[in-house]
């Protein structure tokens, strides 16, 4: 990937899975797929990696590191795969299970019936792995020392507040 980065291909792949995920999450939560929510969910899940990646890239550049932006962003995007996989790991089986059982949908199962624990565990684990992969991106692509990469990414994750503001308070 470092030798032949292809952000174009990765984006197409992530977009396709993102749209599929948007449909899946809506259907398992409500049995209705609303285009507006499809756009909001897909945008939200595919933006989580973006601001920390851009901020960390900027910080590395300010530190005098020179590397391919395409490779860095592609690796940053892929580093968040475990996080997305964690979401899938809950929604796919839970959606099928509840739908076939006919007891409730995934949405009330999470917010009312304490099933958030089954969502929180894979997503939490996925996020932790994504965090570690992101640090590895700093080490391998930006050629920073591991503790510098750790500090840069930890600082960069604070940009998730902006994502929170955009999606919780605006979109």
């Amino acid at each position, binding site marked *: 990937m470092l030798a032949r*980065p*292809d*952000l*174009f291909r990765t*984006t*197409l792949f992530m*977009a396709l899975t*993102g749209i599929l995920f948007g449909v899946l999450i809506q259907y398992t939560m*409500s*049995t*209705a797929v*609303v*285009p*507006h*929510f*499809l*756009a*909001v969910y*897909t*945008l939200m899940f*595919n*933006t989580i990696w973006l601001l920390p990646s851009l901020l960390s890239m900027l910080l590395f550049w300010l530190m005098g590191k020179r590397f391919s932006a*395409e490779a860095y*962003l*592609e690796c940053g995007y892929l580093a968040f795969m475990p996080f997305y996989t964690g979401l899938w790991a809950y929604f796919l089986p839970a959606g099928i299970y509840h739908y076939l059982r*006919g*007891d*409730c*949908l995934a*949405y*009330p199962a*999470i*917010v*009312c*019936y*304490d*099933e*958030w*624990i089954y969502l*929180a565990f894979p997503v939490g684990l996925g996020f932790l792995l994504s965090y570690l992969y992101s640090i590895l991106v700093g080490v391998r692509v930006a050629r920073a020392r591991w503790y510098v990469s750790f500090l840069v990414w930890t600082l960069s994750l604070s940009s998730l*507040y902006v994502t*929170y*503001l955009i999606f*919780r*308070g605006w*979109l």
Partner: protein
Amino acid sequence: MRLPELPPRVEEVWRRFRPFSALAAFFGLLLLLMWVTYVPYPDLVYLEEDGFPSAQVPAVSWPGGTFLVGRRVASALVDGFPVSVENGVARLPENLAPGWHELEIDGVSRGKVLYVAPHSPDNFFWVWVSDIHTPPFGEEKILDRKRVLDLVGELGPAFVVSGGDMTDFGLEDEYSNYLRIISDVGAPVYNLPGNHETYSDARLHRYVRELGPTNYSFTFGDCLFVAAAGLHAYRGWGGFSNEQLSWLDRELSKPAGTKFLLLHIPLAYYTGREYAWVPWCRKDNYFTQILEGHDRVMEIVRRENVLTFFGHWHTFDQEFNLDGLRFFHSPSVTQNSKGVFSAIFGITEPYALGFSFRVVVVENGRLRTVCVDQHKLSIVRENTASGQRILVTNNHDHSVPLNLKVSPGPGDYTVSAGTKSYVQPDGTFWVRLEAQPGTTEISVERSP
């Protein structure tokens, strides 16, 4: 055919931009889709004066009481008998039995749209339920909610306000299940939409078809109730357009002794939740979920000294006093997850309320409210040889007002607790009492 070659400068820009083009196009398309499907406010439906009462917004009154009709109305018949109408106010006879009655206005039948409550306007109670979140399927979950609403009906309120989020997503199946849930309440149920009703029905067309207007007002005695949908479509917060603000100003300016504003989205509360770090939800010393028109609504509420009720957050059972203004944040009917913090820190209340509703007592203009948890109140009736025995078990640490309907059959009966009222020829009557914490036994005995 070969495409013409791009100028070298453009070729160079494209070569640099190409890796990022899919990302830009993807986000661009999503933003475009969001923009095209964006609905700022639902299509609100304001109940016209002449349209009241209706099947979806009935009139509520009391024996010998009054109710509003349009000012141009000349005549009204209740169960086929004429009642006096003057300046848009109809007056009922003293002997009219509590319950539902047929109403005909200016020769046009409106059906059973008049409810005569077994209450006095000087001392009555009504119930606020909200966030029922009826699912599209799952019979057990539907019955969970129905049991709460059946208990609400058993209490015998003058009327019930269902303060939004009665469905999870505003789906057809959810509305039909919701109507089943409230079918045995007995008293009128006034509905107002919540954010969840917009989730598959952004313009609230389905809501209006199933449950009627989104904005309306009604009166009971000297009290004015104004229900308003301060919602943004698809969003967990709300706001008021200029049109809605003018309507709100006009409605709340109507003369009344006590004024209630019924909303789904909280206007002012002081316990932060997931919006706590959104700057525009934070005011100096409270939070709000009303983003547009907030200051204007607060101004009207302050001017008219309005009591504001809302739901939405499920988890609070709080009264918030702000410079003498009172805001009531009520818990939900639907079960709530204990949530991550409760699970970690062992907090169970008030953050995990559910199966709960608020009872509002209005006594000579004074207000008292109590929250009732379905699992802490039970009313069991059993027939005895000489009448009926009613066992009320109240496990709250406060009393709960009751107005129990008793139908032991024809005859004259005495009751061992509470006040007997509105005795009907078939022997039916109502017993009004405050169920104190613990067990209260009410014996209904036939007089010798």
